[in-house]
Each structure stands twice: as structure tokens, then as C-alpha cells.
């Protein structure tokens, strides 16, 4: 009989083990979901078979009301999401480095951040859509979600910079500008990536709120439509699509951050 000893030091063994754990975890999740929803017997909480059937139909035939392809919905959401993400990166990166580096400025602005940060992104949705339209408005809601975790991670990263690195650079002749480009910026990269990772997760949490007022477009708008139409299985299918999109993007970010941290010999 063939038997293989599990070897903790073998990377292949570790990967297979990890994959097995994930599969068992997901199967257990679906079973639990099934048991709970079957016991509840509430049409607002469909059992997994109904949801996966709805998901399957959505992918094959488009949405049950307008017949739009699921890919159209996803494309709109991705566009909203990516716009919000790039905006957040463009604003948070220089601002975070600046606030991390310049103590007095950080002290002065930190009350602003603390006032605005706790406001739920969904609260901004109607304001942004009214003011900036149905294109930019939803992207700005995503922006708010990604911006704050990204900003606070970058500020934290700059503050965590080893004073010895700055001292050593000064005794090697570095000017203020060189300290910034050659020490502060590279030393903060692992924290920037960590901020992106956390921010992406929060960003997907905001997608439904962002698209709640959309006429057509976005997986979030689809979800709201389905709930309004009482098609709960379809609504849950949308939740699964959002979850998969979120997992895919944060997975890529996590992988990138792991590689970079290892290459740089740093842990964020």
C-alpha cells in the first residue's frame, strides 16, 4: 500500500496540505450554510443549491429581468473599483509619506482624519452621486473605503523607519531630498503594500453602497435590484461574485506584498 509521510519541511507537502485544508473548510462552510438555512426555512435565506443554480443561470443566460450579461455587471463594478483604487493610491501615497515624515503636519491634520474616517462609506454614496454623477460618484465611495486604511498604513510605515538608517545616511552625506527618496520611500514599501491589501478588502465592502443608486451597472446595483424584486437566490449569487472578486484582488495584493517583503528582508 502506498503511504506518504507528511514532511513539514517539504514545500510541496505544505502546499498540498494547505489546499486540502481550504477545500475541507469550504465544503464545511457550504454544509453549515445548508443546515442553517434549511432549519430556518425562511425564503429570505435560500439554501446553497438554489443560490448556485441562480449563479449558474446568471452566468449562462444573464440577469432574469433585463437579460444583461453578468460580465457587463462585473465590468462596470471593476471600472468603478479600479477608478476608486487608483484615486486612493494617487492621493494617499504622497499624502501618507508627507504626513508620516513631517510630524507637526501630522499632528495638525490627525483630528481631520479622525473626524472623517469613522463615517461609513454608504453615508457618502448619495452625496457623491448627486455631486459627481453616476460615473465618478460610486468610484469616490470606493475611494473613501480604500483611502483611509492605505493612508494610515503608510503613515505608520514612515514612523516605523529606523532612526539608525536616517543617521547612517546623514553621515554618508545624504541631503533631505535624498533621505526621502533613498530611505523613507523604499523603507515604506512593505507598509504601502500592506495598506493596499487591507484597502482592497475594505474597497469591495463598499461596492454595494457605491452602486446602490446606479440605474444600470455594477454587481452592487444588481444585488439591490434582486433584493427589491424578492429574488433572494439571485441576490446571494451576486454576493458570491463580489466575494470571488474580493478574494482574487486581495490574493494578488497579498502575494505581491509577501514577495516584496521577503526580497527586501523586511516584514510589515
Amino acid at each position, binding site marked *: 500500500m502506498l503511504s506518504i509521510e507528511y514532511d513539514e519541511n517539504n514545500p510541496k507537502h505544505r502546499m498540498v496540505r494547505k489546499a486540502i485544508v481550504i477545500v475541507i473548510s469550504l465544503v464545511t462552510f457550504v454544509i453549515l450554510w445548508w443546515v442553517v438555512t434549511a432549519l430556518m426555512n425562511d425564503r429570505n435565506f435560500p439554501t446553497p443549491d438554489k443560490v448556485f443554480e441562480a449563479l449558474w443561470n446568471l452566468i449562462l443566460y444573464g440577469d432574469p429581468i433585463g437579460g444583461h450579461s453578468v460580465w457587463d455587471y462585473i465590468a462596470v463594478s471593476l471600472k468603478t473599483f479600479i477608478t476608486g483604487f487608483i484615486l486612493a493610491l494617487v492621493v494617499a501615497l504622497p499624502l501618507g509619506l508627507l504626513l508620516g515624515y513631517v510630524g507637526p503636519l501630522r499632528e495638525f491634520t490627525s483630528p481631520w482624519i479622525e473626524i472623517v474616517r469613522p463615517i461609513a462609506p454608504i453615508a457618502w454614496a448619495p452625496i457623491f452621486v448627486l455631486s459627481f454623477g453616476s460615473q465618478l460618484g460610486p468610484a469616490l465611495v470606493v475611494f473613501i473605503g480604500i483611502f483611509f486604511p492605505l493612508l494610515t498604513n503608510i503613515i505608520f510605515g514612515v514612523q516605523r523607519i*529606523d532612526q*539608525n*538608517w536616517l*543617521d*547612517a*545616511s*546623514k*553621515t*554618508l*552625506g*545624504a*541631503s533631505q531630498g*535624498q533621505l526621502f527618496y*533613498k*530611505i523613507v520611500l*523604499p*523603507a515604506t*514599501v512593505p507598509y504601502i503594500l500592506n495598506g493596499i491589501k487591507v484597502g482592497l478588502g475594505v474597497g469591495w465592502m463598499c461596492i454595494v453602497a457605491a452602486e446602490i443608486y446606479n440605474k444600470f451597472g455594477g454587481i452592487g446595483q444588481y444585488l439591490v435590484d434582486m433584493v427589491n424584486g424578492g429574488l433572494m437566490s439571485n441576490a446571494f449569487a451576486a454576493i458570491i461574485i463580489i466575494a470571488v472578486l474580493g478574494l482574487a484582488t486581495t490574493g494578488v495584493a497579498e502575494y505581491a506584498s509577501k514577495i516584496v517583503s521577503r*526580497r*527586501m*528582508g*523586511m516584514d510589515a
Partner: protein
Amino acid sequence: MSKGEMVIEGEKYNSKDRVRADHTDKLYAHIPEGETLLSIRDLNVTYRTDEKSTVAVDNLSFDIKKGELVSIVGPSGCGKSTVLRCISGLLQPTSGTIMIGDNKCTTAGSDRGMVFQEFALFPWRTVRKNIEFGLEIAGVPKEERRERSEKYLKAMGLFEFADSRIHELSGGMKQRVGIARAMIMHPAVILMDEPFGALDAQTRNILQESLVKVLKNSSRTIVFVTHSVDEALYLSDRIIVLSKRPATIHKIIEVPGDRPRDRVAPEYAAMRKEILSYLQSQNTMN
């Protein structure tokens, strides 16, 4: 030639270059070996808190001659590292002046290279890129950087680690990088702040020997802070013995003998005993 500019061997340095450029030792080529290069005058460091002010360094004056290695020893917490940080410009003294030749040192700069106890290497750079850091700052072209770092990688026994990351190195290897990074710049003065303090005894000895070997081939002016009397006796031309806080100079001892020295020679044993018994008498725990 405008004010603040000097021409050394056909190269032009202005006062800004004095703290940015490499080869700042050339600025003082006119000072012969054995003449005063670095002078510290009336150095005072006082820390003020709300209730009281603590004098850490009290009116310290001494000279360092070109080409010599001077150790500063003293009881724990006497402020020897504080003195070194003042010389480096990383710490502003309460009063006093620090001069290299005719130039007053006010801020940190590349004319006073430093080796840190905690290595202070950049983990996102390879060994080679760590060593080349100062040359990059000084705007030395890539090819020349490569050529010069190659020399130091070899001299410090780091050649096979050139493309390694810092976290892959042992403590001793890390400090070799730290020394190479300071030396490659050819600063006027090199400051070493307990450079081997974080290493085990064996590695420490090996690094002391490496340093001696490098200094054989390339004359440098070094101020070396250590808490090890043995290390001071093995490496220094002179030893400045500081009192307990506030630091004043107790004694300056000339150490005879060419390097490399015999660690257990009887003449050093007597000096060792003298310094150690003084340090013990100054121990604030007594």
C-alpha cells in the same frame, strides 16, 4: 576662485561638497600625518528636563592627529557615545566647537563617516548596494562605484556575499559591510561607535584583526568608542580615558607598538590593569 571653494588635485570642492562628496580626506591632504586633524574644544552637552538639567559632557577638549586611531573608553553611561555623536553632527552639543582642519563642523556630513553598533544597514539593498550608498549620494558614476565597491568587498572578505541581502548575513558579516560602507567614502575622519559591541568574543577578535589589516593598506583617522579595554589596547595609538558622568578627561594614554599587536604582551597587561582599576573606581554602583 570664489569664497568657500578649494581646489584639491584639480578637483573642485565648495563648502556644500565638503559634507556631500566622497574623498573628503583630499581636502586635508595638506595636513601631514601626525599633525592635528580633528579638534574638539570645550564640548558641553546638557540635557534639560522640566525639573533639572543633567550635564552629560563637561567642557571636553582633545585633538585627534591625522592617521591615528584613538579610542575613547569610560565607565558605562559616562557619555562616550554622546561625544562621538556630537563629532558626527547627529547631536548638537550645548556648546563647544568641532573642527576638521580649518573647517567648523555644524551638521552631519560625509567628511565624518560613522560605523554604528547596531550596524544601521539598509535591508532593502544588497551588500554591494549598501557599500555603494555613499557613492550614489555623492553622484559617483555607476561603473566607478562598481569598481570601488569590488575592492572593498574583497578587502572585507565579503566578495561571495556581494548580492546577498542583509538579513542573510551573520552579525560579524553585517559589521564588515558597515565598515566598508564608511571606508569607501574616504571621509576625513571615521567614527566608530562600539562597532563590535553587539558581537560575540570570537567574532569580535576576528573583526579587530580585519580592521588592523585594512588600516595597514590604507591610513585612516579613526575615533573609536568602546567599553572594552582589551579592544582599545589592541587597536589604538592613544586611549582617552573618561571619568564618570559628567564626562571629563581622566587621562590620555599612548599605546606603544605597531599593529598587529600581541594581545597578551606584559606591557599591555599593566596598562590594562591601570585603566580597569580606574574604571572600577568610577563605577557609579560603588
